């Protein structure tokens, strides 16, 4: 296992009022993303625990693109990763942002 952590300044606050949301499952080639609205509006953080060791630079690239594109201000993402491909990671992160923007608790 490897732990990775990223913090990015962001342009704007993420939409919605929901406090938290979760998407995905931890399985081979899959991951879960828990997203919580716990940070100041101009920040976002991503904490990762992954079975695939040594892919820090790929994660960094995936997360850089994600933050640039979705501007998830105020959100903390916690990821348990079962060795998902980068495109699956991008998709789950985008799904998490969509889910926390929905109505509900």
């Amino acid at each position, binding site marked *: *296992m490897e732990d990775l952590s990223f913090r990015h300044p962001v342009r704007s606050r993420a939409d919605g009022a929901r406090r938290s949301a*979760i998407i995905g*499952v931890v*399985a081979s080639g899959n991951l879960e993303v828990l997203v919580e609205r716990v940070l100041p509006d101009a920040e976002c953080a991503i904490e990762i*625990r992954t079975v695939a060791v040594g892919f820090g630079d790929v994660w960094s690239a995936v997360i850089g693109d994600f933050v640039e594109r979705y501007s998830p201000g105020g959100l903390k993402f*916690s990821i348990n990763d079962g060795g998902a491909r980068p495109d699956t990671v991008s998709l789950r992160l985008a799904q998490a942002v969509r889910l926390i923007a929905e109505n509900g608790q």
Partner: protein
Amino acid sequence: MIAPLKDITPAERARSTSFNEASARTRLELLLDAGSFVEFIGPEQREVSPHLKIFDLPEQFDDGIVVGRGNLDGSPVFVAAQEGRFMGGAFGEVHGAKLTGLLRAARQIGSIPVLILFDTGGVRLQEANAGELAIAEIMRAVMEARSAGVKVIGLIGGRSGCYGGGGLIAGCCSALAVSEPGRIAVSGPEVIETNRGVEEFDSRDRALVWRTMGGKHRRLLGAADVFADDNVQDFREAARELLRLVGPFSLDRLRAEQERLAQRLRRFGACEDAVDIWTEEGIPDAETVPELPADQFVALANRIGRTSRDAR
């Protein structure tokens, strides 16, 4: 089979969502009245397994089981749903404790039924002792809850089936609903093949696996009480039906269940294959049972009528 559009009703969405394919969370969302689900010990509390880290294995924030309460047609229910894709839905210490706790709460309140959405291969190898203990605790908790008047309904239709300790717990429930892809057994196909040889049981012969352990056979044998088509709405309706049908629990009922099982063994004990049992039941063209569409199968099963409503 055609893709749903955004503006459909929850019931339509539940009807078009495969129970087998859906995640534990989606199953609960669509099984219960819209927006009524409240989770206990949610993923944000991070009550993860204390054992997996030692094996350098990934954790899941809910340890593979979602527990909470919600409404079914406006009436409160407790629910637990296993996530069959995380470690095959297997029971570990935290996973088991969440279900035990839910059942004990139900016993204390006494009037709120419990729905367990099984999706499990059994006990997690990496926390075997804790997992086995959890199975025993859950079985006891189920029986105590039932003794206190709580109906405990099992819904089985996930990809991991309901195996090992899951099969034992299911056997303790007040009633079960199962779908065609759902499987119920204690020893899984690979376990049987490993122990008894491929001549005894070829685990790769999936038609054999399903006609031995699958939902249709379990319904025809009376091990499951209701057959649901593989969509969440059908399971919702099955749960409603079972909550209506299940009677009070007593020692007489347990004795009746024992007698039902003994009689079943006497009648079918010599059969070599599920098809022989179905033929013995008087089903014409028994070998075509696996091909029957759900509605025709339900009609057939109701005609055979082998359920356990006077037993369990």
